[in-house]
């Protein structure tokens, strides 16, 4: 199997202005900081970012937001990053953030559907709420469900704890969250990882994301310093 390790600058080479990017992590736990840093340095603009949340100022997706690189944010919760509200309400038209909120379970399942070739799914979540606006309601055995469609991206940036050179990845503890789902739902997938090992070192029973989904492996992720 191929060695996919590259430098972080090679890894982000093809990501351009206007790209749709999924970023793993939950409040930045499980977000690949080195890849985010490379995007900040590259300073590409008008990104659509799909992430559970807006990270924290100075951490995760929060860095892209602070740097004015995000045009549209698709997330489930943005309350812990005060910059989101500022940017949603700014009068400066070019700084204005378009924020689309999706229930967390629906967001996860839409990404899974996008990676799994499903045309959508029926969820009871959001029935009778704002979330149901413009959505088809389908009744199965007397219960109403919303028809939710799949979500895909041009790129997925995910964070591994241990990754082999082919891209097979293991996530430690609660860093897993959206990472394995996003790894299947984008045209190109870059994993930033803490530890790179040789192909064959990982037990195939315990690999959480197969290298078949991964395009580039970048080392150098560090545990977050409290």
């Amino acid at each position, binding site marked *: 199997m191929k060695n996919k390790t590259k430098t972080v600058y090679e890894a982000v080479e093809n990501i351009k202005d206007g790209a749709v990017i999924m970023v793993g992590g939950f409040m930045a736990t499980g977000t690949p900081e080195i890849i985010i840093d490379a995007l900040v340095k590259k300073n590409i603009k008008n990104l659509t970012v799909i992430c559970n949340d807006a990270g924290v100022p100075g951490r995760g997706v929060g860095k892209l937001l602070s740097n004015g690189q995000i045009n549209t944010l698709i997330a489930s919760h943005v*309350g812990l990053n005060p910059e989101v509200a500022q940017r949603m309400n700014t009068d400066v038209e070019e700084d204005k953030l378009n924020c689309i909120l999706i229930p967390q379970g629906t967001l996860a399942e839409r990404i899974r559907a996008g990676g799994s070739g499903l045309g959508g799914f029926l969820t009871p979540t959001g029935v009778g709420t704002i979330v149901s606006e413009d959505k088809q309601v389908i009744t199965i055995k007397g219960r109403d469900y919303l028809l939710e469609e799949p979500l895909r991206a041009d790129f997925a940036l995910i964070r591994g704890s241990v990754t082999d050179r082919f891209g097979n990845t293991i996530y430690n*503890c609660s860093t897993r969250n959206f990472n394995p789902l996003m790894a299947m739902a984008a045209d190109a997938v870059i994993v930033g990882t803490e530890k790179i090992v040789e192909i064959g070192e990982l037990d195939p029973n315990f690999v959480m994301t197969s290298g078949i989904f991964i395009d580039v492996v970048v080392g150098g992720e560090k545990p977050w310093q*409290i």
Partner: protein
Amino acid sequence: MADIKTIIASRVAKELKDGDVVNLGIGLPTMVANYIPKGIEVIFQSENGFVGLGPVPDKGNENVDIVNAGAQYVSVIPGAQFFDSATSFGIIRGKHVDVTILGALEVDQKGNLANWIIPGKMVPGMGGAMDLVVGAKKVIIAMQHTQKGKHKILKECTLPYTALNVVDMIITEMGVMEITPGGIYLKEIRSEFTPEQVQAATGAELIISSDLKIWK
């Protein structure tokens, strides 16, 4: 005297049964974990990806890869499991969570809940709340009875809904209420209050139990 949050959290904890899988919302609900009765074992689910959530570790002993849904460093107990977000919400929507405990901006007599948005003012997002209240077997709202004197328990919610017909029970510093097809049933009252006081603090008509228990 204990503060109001402690009073509410410790009363909520008595609703939990041995073996229950429980999800606690951010804030007051998180405190429920500190008051689980002796002899009762409860397993906490954290919607960001695990069951078997344990106590907050001492400073300096944090595992930075283990956070709860409020982004606090926590721990796991023996027998825990980590999983991805799709599995986590499969567990939640699939009725594998016995009880979810969360706060509310408003609850109404039909069990409708509003707790995620104040249009034009506060738009934090719904996070996992919409899935949790639709999916959990039992939904308990743990909150102060009023917001600076303003009613939160209403005939009909005025804020955008989190979900319809989902709330089973409301526990406040004044009492314990169940949502029934007939309306809000006051089951238990704290000894400091009279039924009239609770009714006055409530924006919907209460059905007062003929067997009203006093909560001391």
